[in-house]
């Protein structure tokens, strides 16, 4: 079976060297083919620019001429024994929605700080959002150490400040390494220029810190079974198991029906099985006297809490101006009647904010949701207590 890499998002202030770090890293670890590197070098030469390591990630012409990352790019690299997917996020504050699009899939984060500029607004904002999204392990990369003339004292100070800020935000595991990405120093092996830093090389820390990537759902096996119906065809309820396991003969509720229904058949993809686990895409046939099931119905072993008025933590990407706002979760859209943040009447964008929401009908929220208008996502949220 194809192997799934461990996903890591790379965050930080613009121009602190995120794309440069990844460009150099995929080059040094031979994770990019030689002809692609040569071609990027040729393109730069043709356009009269200097080749930048960031060009290996920034593929749009706009990105290269402006020297900035516009949208998320993904590369895979083998570092040590494991395979990683590295997600390069843009650092500009206008591009937070792109950064979140990348970070919401990641298990771990790298935060890049330029040694000469130190911690900036975007550094902290990214760190807050990534933590909100569920990341609790972070590797701080103090980049551009050449610009502080490899001063161990300056590095130490920056490391302490950064680690204390991240700890305050709520990160549980924090490690820091110094390097110079554009010069390729202290990246894969310990570098003599960093002797005084008493710090290992980037790759050494990276390998140790980013070790396991349990299939998200493996952690959920011990919870009660829950699946949201994604589609319903030929009496088969289709969906991805959100948590727990299900066996033939088990009985379930369908969004809090008073009656329980027995599981008659289970398919894993297109094959009949006796048992299915969290994360798997399955089909269920129930002994059903019910009318058709619908997308958004929830099949669960236990009764679930229905919410209509609730408190949540939300990150707004835009000020919600449209009168037609919805919560979307578990394939359901429910109109919002009232929304009010702790900063009422203001909306402070891109920062986790305590928010009270009233819906026009109760729904089951199992974790996260998005806030949307007719056409796009304008915010994301997590329930405070379920």
């Amino acid at each position, binding site marked *: 079976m194809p192997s799934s890499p461990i996903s890591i998002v790379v965050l930080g202030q613009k121009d602190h060297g995120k794309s440069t770090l990844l460009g150099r890293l995929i080059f040094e670890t031979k994770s990019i083919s030689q002809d692609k590197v040569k071609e990027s070098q040729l393109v730069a030469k043709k356009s009269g620019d200097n080749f930048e390591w960031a060009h290996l990630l920034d*593929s749009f012409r706009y990105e290269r001429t402006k020297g900035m990352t516009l949208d998320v790019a993904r590369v895979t690299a083998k570092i040590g024994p494991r395979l990683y997917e590295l997600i390069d996020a843009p650092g500009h504050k206008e591009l937070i929605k792109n950064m979140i699009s990348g970070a919401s899939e990641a298990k771990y984060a790298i935060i890049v700080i330029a040694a000469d500029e130190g911690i900036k607004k975007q550094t902290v904002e990214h760190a807050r959002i990534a933590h909100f999204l569920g990341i609790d392990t972070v590797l701080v990369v103090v980049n551009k150490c050449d610009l502080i003339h490899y001063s161990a004292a300056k590095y130490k100070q920056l490391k302490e400040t950064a680690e204390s800020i991240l700890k305050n935000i709520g990160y549980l595991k924090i490690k820091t390494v110094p390097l110079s990405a554009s010069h390729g120093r202290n990246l894969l092996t310990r570098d003599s220029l960093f002797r005084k830093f008493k710090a290992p090389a980037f790759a050494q820390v990276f390998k140790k810190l980013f070790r396991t990537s349990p299939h998200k759902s493996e952690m959920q096996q011990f919870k009660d079974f829950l699946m949201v119906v994604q589609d319903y065809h030929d009496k088969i309820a289709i969906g991805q198991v959100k948590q727990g396991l299900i066996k033939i003969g088990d009985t379930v509720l369908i969004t809090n029906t008073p009656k329980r229904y027995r599981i008659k058949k289970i398919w894993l993809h297109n094959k009949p099985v006796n048992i299915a686990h969290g994360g798997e895409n399955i089909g269920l046939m129930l002994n059903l006297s019910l009318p058709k099931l619908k997308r958004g119905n929830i099949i669960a072993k236990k009764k679930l809490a229905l919410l209509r008025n609730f408190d949540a933590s939300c990150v707004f990407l835009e000020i919600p101006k449209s009168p037609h706002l919805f919560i979307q979760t578990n394939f359901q859209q429910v109109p919002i009647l009232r929304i009010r943040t702790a900063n009422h009447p203001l909306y402070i964008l891109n920062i986790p904010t305590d928010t009270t929401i009233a819906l026009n009908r109760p729904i089951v929220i199992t974790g996260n949701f998005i806030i949307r208008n007719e056409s796009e996502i304008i915010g994301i949220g997590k329930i405070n207590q379920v």
Partner: protein
Amino acid sequence: MNRPMPSALVEESIFVLRETKANFKNPAILWSGGKDSTAVLDLCREAFFNRVPFPVIHIDNGLDFPETYAFRDELVKKWDLKLLVAKSRVKNDPISGVDCCGANKTHALKTLVKKEHFDAIIVSIRSDEHGIRAKERVFSPRDRNWQWNYKNQPAEIWNHVVINNKADHYRAHPILHWREIDIWEYIVENDIPLNPLYFSKNNRRYRSLGCTRCTISIKSSARTIRDILKELGQSEISERSGREQDKEAEFVMERLRALGYM
């Protein structure tokens, strides 16, 4: 647990395919006869109980390899596919510089999609094929002019699909996060029928398949998928180096994709 956990990559692809079916009224799937789109047809069969529930579009300029046409017709029968052929003209395309593919294929697709009113097209691109494709979303809107607004892509968060009704259609990318080697592992594991051009004949084979005009074979003795996997482990050359229109110089791929190319 009695059996190993299925791969998270496969699960994600099946989820995306099922979301495509649930969110759109009239999706179709592009199929070139190549390994990636054939693997996606197989993933459809996994997702939808052994059938492909979408019309299958082959964009045909009349210049594909005879092996490709034979393979296409054989699989159409075997898997009971509803095949639609989008006839593409061969004429000079100033963007890619090749007259067989690029913008010409986009035009052919456009004509068919408009005629059939497809609102989603499943496309088997992967982010490791090209830097521009590495910038894609899983569900990616195209506007009325078929433009890809890559400077302002919608947010895509936690598997919540949000469809903008103003879009002309969406591209759904079920294997965007797979690598070349993942495709081969999936193919060998699931014993998926394959175009014979991928295997060595007279010490040459095709690593990536386009049409006869703009695809170049590589030197290789790989006669089985196991051989190919071994070869990939040692190669320092990228998969699509034999494809004319992929050249980064002049930003050909970016310009083609902005106008609706895959």
